[in-house]
C-alpha cells in the first residue's frame, strides 16, 4: 500500500493535484517531483487540494513552500485547498503558518476563482487576429 498518492486533473489550463494518504519525509520529494512535472508551460495555475490528506508534517509544509517558489519563478499561480477541519490545517496551525490569499476552503471555490479571473483577463486582451 502506497503511503501517499497524487491524482491529477486539468480544467482549462488549471491543473488540480489532489493529495491522498500521508505525506512525510519518505515521500515528499517524490510527490513534489510528480507535481512539478505536471506543470507544463501552457498551465496557468496549480490548485493543490489537500482536503483528503490524512497526515502532513513539516516535510509536507516544505513541499508546499518549494512548489510555491518554483511556480512563482515560472509565472504560474498556486492555490491551496485546505478545509479548516482537516489534518493538513491542524499541521499548518501548529507550525504557525497562517492562512493567506492563496488558501481556500473548497475545490469549487478555487475553480470558480480561476474561471472568473480568466474570463476577465480574456476580455482585456485584444484578439490577435484584429491587430
Amino acid at each position, binding site marked *: *500500500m502506497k*503511503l501517499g498518492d497524487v491524482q491529477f486533473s486539468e480544467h482549462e489550463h488549471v491543473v488540480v493535484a489532489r493529495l*491522498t*494518504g*500521508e505525506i*512525510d*519525509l*519518505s515521500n515528499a520529494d517524490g510527490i513534489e517531483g510528480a507535481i512539478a512535472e505536471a506543470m507544463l508551460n501552457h498551465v496557468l495555475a496549480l490548485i493543490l487540494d489537500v482536503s483528503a490528506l*490524512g*497526515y502532513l*508534517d*513539516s*516535510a509536507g*509544509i*516544505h513541499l508546499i*513552500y518549494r512548489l510555491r517558489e518554483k511556480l512563482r519563478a515560472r509565472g504560474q499561480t498556486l492555490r491551496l485547498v485546505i478545509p479548516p477541519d482537516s*489534518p493538513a490545517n*491542524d*499541521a499548518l*496551525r*501548529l*507550525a*504557525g*503558518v497562517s492562512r493567506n490569499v492563496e488558501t481556500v476552503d473548497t475545490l469549487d471555490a478555487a475553480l470558480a476563482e480561476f474561471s472568473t479571473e480568466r474570463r476577465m483577463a480574456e476580455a482585456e486582451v485584444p484578439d490577435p487576429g484584429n491587430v
Partner: protein
Amino acid sequence: MTLENPHHHVPRAGQTVLTPVEPALVPAHQIEAFARLSDPALSELGLEEFLDELLLRVQEALAVDTVAILLHDVDTHQLVARAAKGIEEEVERGVRIPIGQGFAGRIAAERVAVFVADVDHADILNPILREKGIHSLLGIPLIVEGQLIGVLHVGSLVPRMFGTRDLAVLQAAAARAAPGIERARLFSELEHEHQVAMVLQRSLLPKRLSDVIGVTSAARYLPAADEVGGDWYDVFELARGRLGVAIGDVVGHGVRAAALMGQLRTALHAYALQDHGPARTLELVDRYVQSMPDYAMATAAYAVLEPDTGEVQIASAGHLPPLIVSGAGGRVVDVTPSAPLGAFSYGRVHEQELLLAPGETLVFYTDGLVERPGTPLTESIDELLAVVRGAGSVDELCRRAVDEMVPLEGLRDDVAIVAIQNSAIDDHLDLHLPADPKILAEIRLVLRRWLRHQGANDSETMEITLAVSEACTNAIEHAYSPAPAEFILRASADEGRVTFVVSDAGRWRAPRGHDRGRGLTIIRAAMDDVEVNSAETGTEIVMHRKLAP
C-alpha cells in the same frame, strides 16, 4: 540471518557440530551407489521419483529408521519438508522450519553437520521428530555452487552414536544428490501438469504476510494429497494502517480451480485496495464471477481490522464461520453468511462489526480442515476451537490446527488457515529503529495505537503523533553516515501525562533557511514541555503532555 557466517557456531543444548570428514572413509560400493544419483538421466525421473530413490539408498546404506529432505524456500527463509522415509508426516503436514531455529534450521544457517545423541535433551523445533520416538539424529546441509538448497537428515529410533563413517556416507550422498535435486526441481516444474499447477498455486499465495505494527499474523496452506485445489488466503495492508484479511475456496479441483482461485484472489485484493468495505468488496467479486463465461462458484470471507481500536468489519459469502481465540477461551463467531460468490444474480452481502480486543486472535480456515465423513461440521469446528485455544502465538495456533486436525492418511481436500492477532499493547514503548524515512509511517501507527490505549482523544492523538513524528524525522535526518544508523523512541505514561524521548547519535540539526526549524515549532506547539539536550554523543528530545481527563 546467519547464512553468511558459516564459522560462527553458537553452542546449543544437546547438539554437537561435526567437522566434515574425508571421502576416503566411504566404502567403494556405496560411492558407486551414490554416483549413480548424479547421472543426468536420473534427474529426468522428476523430483518425486528422484528423491524417493535417493532416500531409499541413504536409508539402506546407513541402516537408519528415518530419512528426510527439507528444501530451502528462499522467499520465506524457511526449510520446507519435501520428502521423507519413516516420517512421511513431515511432508504431509507441510512442516516449515525457520532458518536458524531448531536442529535442521541450525544446519542450514551455519552450514554445518549436526549430531544429536538424545532428542529429548536437545533443541528440536519439529514436534514430529519427538512424536515418532526418534532418539538420535544426524543432519547435513545440501549446497550447490555455494547456494544452500536444503537439509538432509537421518534418524534412529534406538540410541546411536553417529560417527565419522556415517557422516562420510551422508556427505557423499549429499554431494551427489544436491545438483540432481536442483536439476530435477527445474525439470519437474516444467514438465508435470500437477507440478505446474502446484507451482501456480504456490506463487499465487502471498509469500510473506504483511507486517502491520500491532498485529501479528500467520497462515498455512496445504495441498491435497493427489490434486490441486482452489483454496487461498490473503493478508494485506490498507490505507490508514488497517489490515485486510481474506480467505476463499473455489468449488472444484484441478488446474481450472487453481487458476480461478488466482483470479478471485487478485480481484478481491484489487477491490479491497479501493477501500470498499468487506461487504461491497465481496459483492464486486461476486459480479466478477457472474461475468465469467463458464460456471464458477466460490465461498469467501473478508475482514478489515483497525489496529487502533480493534474494530473489525467482516462479511462472508457462504464461508465457514471464523473463530475468535482469546487466551484459553474462544468462540465461533456468528457471522450472517450471505450466498456464495457466483450463486445468484445481484447477490447482496451482509456486513457486521465485531471487536478484537488486544490479545485476541481472529481465525479463518477452509473446509478441508474440518470436513470429515460422518462428523457434523459444527462438531469438528468445535474440535478445531478446542485445539487452537490457548496457543501461545499465531504461528503455534496454525501449527496446532494442522498437526491435530489433518488426518494421518493425508488430505483429500486442500486446506488454508490464516490467523491475525491484535497484539497486546505495552505500557512502555522502547523501540530501536533504523534511521530510514520509511519507518515514519509505522511509527505513527504505533503511536496512534498506543495513545488511544492511554486514553488520548482524537485531537490529542493527532497532535502528539505529529510532534513525535517530527522528532523522529529530525533523528533520521541526523543520520548522515552511509552506514546503517539507528535511533531510539521511548514512551511512557504516568497519571495521565505521557512522555516521549527520541534519542540519536547526531547533533540537533541547526535550522537551514527560513523554512527549516518548523519541525521544532510544531513539537513545541503540540506538547506542554519540550527539552532538547544536545551533547557530543548525540541529541535527545524529551516531550511531555498532559492528556485531558
